[in-house]
């Protein structure tokens, strides 16, 4: 019911709100630059920053859609590890059975993404047909999916049997003309980063231009209104969770190829909170019915910058949490105040 909506989005605010997250970003950027100078501005540092935040970024994009539909998905981290585990086991067994590396990698990748999608759809079924609060349904997934992957690999790590190709995928990228890294090799924009941006752009387009995006917002903002307008709420919900799963599968692929292995006990641990934080910092309301992917992308970058700057500026590890927490809150605070 849209009982609360009148109070959250007043026309005057909206324009400014748009800029809030940008403002936050710029401020943080300035601070980082001031604090670390070249070390931060160094293109290689950016490459690292983007590269390492791409996976959680991909998750955050999906999370944006889920949250817009007035849902939430706490199981993303576990979906990633489960998908990665299944995918890599498949790939390895293929390699061992003498399939050509290329085919093994391709098939393995496909399985990874498929596994993710299935897991996501499973969440969707619980939420839609089981009519279980998304929070609790996916909380179950958070516990269950990881423990499955632990069982698959005896809580150990699964090491890729693909000699070169798979990890090449993970570490490679499209070279950026004219930039060299400290080792003098041409600087590349990692594939993961490219995938992240592509995914984000597609999602933003669907959200603002497509019919599905429209229905998503309607369902999230006022389920009754949506149903009265003849929209099949269940179908929309189901799809958004499957999409989340699909993206989790993609993130899993990016991660496992990057590490050329899957550590079932730790991969993706806690990434649900990072993803959600990015979404909210990006200006999407947890209440559902309103959101934007581009904001989420900025949110991901903000979070990434925090970690990055903390790492290279040698802040005491004890205090890093405090700083991170403070910056997250400030980032949102800036948005609020920039509205007044």
């Amino acid at each position, binding site marked *: 019911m849209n*009982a609360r*909506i009148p109070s959250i*989005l007043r026309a005057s605010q909206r324009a400014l709100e748009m800029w809030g997250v940008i403002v936050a970003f710029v401020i943080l950027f300035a601070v980082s630059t001031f604090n670390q100078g070249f070390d931060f501005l160094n293109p290689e540092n950016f490459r690292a920053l983007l590269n390492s935040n791409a996976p959680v970024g991909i998750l955050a994009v999906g999370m944006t859609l889920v949250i817009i539909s007035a849902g939430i998905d706490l199981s993303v981290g576990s979906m990633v590890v489960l998908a990665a585990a299944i995918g890599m086991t498949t790939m390895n067994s293929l390699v061992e059975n003498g399939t050509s590396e290329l085919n093994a990698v391709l098939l393995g990748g496909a399985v990874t993404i498929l596994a993710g999608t299935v897991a996501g759809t499973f969440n969707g079924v619980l939420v839609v047909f089981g009519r279980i609060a998304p929070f609790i349904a996916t909380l179950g997934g958070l516990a269950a999916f990881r423990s499955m992957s632990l069982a698959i690999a005896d809580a150990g790590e699964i090491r890729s049997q693909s000699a070169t190709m798979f990890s090449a995928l993970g570490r490679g990228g499209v070279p950026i003309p004219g930039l060299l890294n400290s080792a003098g090799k041409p600087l590349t924009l990692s594939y993961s980063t490219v995938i992240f941006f592509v995914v984000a752009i597609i999602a933003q387009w669907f959200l603002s231009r497509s019919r599905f995006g429209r229905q998503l917002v309607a369902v999230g903002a006022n389920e009754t*209104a949506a149903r*009265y307008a003849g929209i099949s709420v269940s179908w929309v919900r189901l799809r958004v969770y499957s999409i989340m799963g699909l993206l989790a599968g993609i993130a899993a692929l990016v991660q496992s190829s990057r590490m050329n292995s899957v550590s079932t006990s730790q991969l993706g641990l806690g990434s649900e909170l990072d993803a959600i934080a990015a979404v909210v910092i990006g200006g999407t309301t947890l209440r559902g019915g309103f959101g934007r992917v581009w904001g989420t992308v900025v949110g991901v970058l903000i979070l990434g910058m925090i970690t990055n700057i903390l790492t290279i500026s040698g802040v005491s590890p004890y205090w890093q949490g405090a700083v991170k927490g403070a910056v997250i809150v400030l980032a949102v605070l800036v948005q609020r105040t920039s509205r007044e």
Partner: protein
Amino acid sequence: MVARSNPISSSAQAHKAQEDLNREILVVNSVTVDYPGVRALDAVSLAFRTGEIHAIVGENGAGKSTMMKVLSGVIRPTSGTIMLKGIQRQFTRPSDAIRAGIAMVHQELHLVGTLNVAENVLLGREPTRFLGVAVDHQRQHAVAGALLRQLGSDFDLSTLACDLSIAQQQFVEIAKCLASDARVLIFDEPTAVLGEVEANRLFVVMRRLRDEGRCVIFISHHLDEVISIADRITVLRDGKVVQAFSRNTSGIVQCEDGSIADEGRLAHAMVGHELSSIYPEKLYATCTSSAIELANFGATNKSHGISFSVAAGEILGIAGLVGSGRTETAEAIVGIRPCEGVLRVEGREIRFSNPRAAMRSGVAYVSEDRKNRGLHVTLSSICNMMLPSLDKVTRLGGIMIDSQSEQRISKNWIDAFQIRCARPMQAISSLSGGNQQKFALARWLEATPKVLIIDEPTRGVDVGARGEIYRIIAQLAREGLACIVISSELPEVIGIAHRVIVMREGRIAGEIPSERLALKDCQERIVRIASGLPEESVASK
């Protein structure tokens, strides 16, 4: 699909429609709906014809909305069947009904607050490009614009629904319904939130739809409207059809027995007994000390230069067209909106930061927007009843709530206003619209304020109960309550107010003193002031 979604371009269908005029299109056979504790509909059988405007009237809680929700697939009947064009249908969800060509404007507003007007109007039937993937924004704008223009309402299509006024939201709902190009259109109390002028625009459209051979079902508590527009009228009472009227060839509404039917007959049929005039006779306040006084007051950039004063025991009416800034002004008084100018309560200059503060100095405001602001629809009736006056029922230094007295109080009001609710713990959302309105009012009367501002006091309330509400307002006024009644219903304002202020575009456009209220051209005068025409009509010169 896009072509369909624009009724204007469907003259072809309009022609085809002419042939199957007055054929029974929608037939209801002994439909029963049970809710825990209530039988909302009791074996109702009805037939709706093409090319007619079929009005349904009845007391609050008579089962009108329930009937319509059955037709539009929102609820499944406990028993009974629906035949559409001679084929038996089972609607399990609204989309079924929509596909079958039945569209409905619900009594409660259901817009998507975060989507803009155009998007809301075409929600679920967006014109699309790229194999139905992408929304065609140009076409969407065009179609939505066209639909709203028919209703004579021209507001920016890109404003978000949550920024619309109640009345504007209602127009969007209607446009949504038109967009579906359905054969059967159901309007559940569309005029309740509309002013006279807006209502008339709607009637024009309804007539045109009828002439196109569609079936228009219309629910209203304004019996004059019903008499003037309906081809047939069905009266519901306690979930049963009690009487039917129809307009004869010479355009007069008759009962089955052929006798001519007027509002009185209708009202009688509805409530089951004779109704005296619903407006209590006015006792003019003797006391002159003003309870509340505004000087150059205004709601920041919504209304300006409002100056009036209401004495204890006086009832001030505020009339005006939709969006004339009455609600904003009221909201500014109780501190919901930023305000300018001077506000005096019992002589003391004061300014309220929030309704709580206002309450402390005895000023209360009954919102017109009962669903989002006036009530907690998800909570129980009792809980809603007591919220503004919790102190009354708390013991142990205001900590513990005494549930006995709480229930006693609610019980009293339920009786006083003849509110239909099965159990006092029933959630407000499960009450009929009118009964909700009664709660919204009662809760504030219980808080015994010195100054009471009522915005649209009888929105969606049936004639019987309406009289009761007026009586109680008048009664409290006699006991020294200063009352401001904001209403878009002129008869109501004229009926109970001692004095009427007419607002226009955020300013006071004129005032009707008590002596002139009696005059019969008073209503016309108010309309003219409100719409900025010269006060003296040509006729009266």
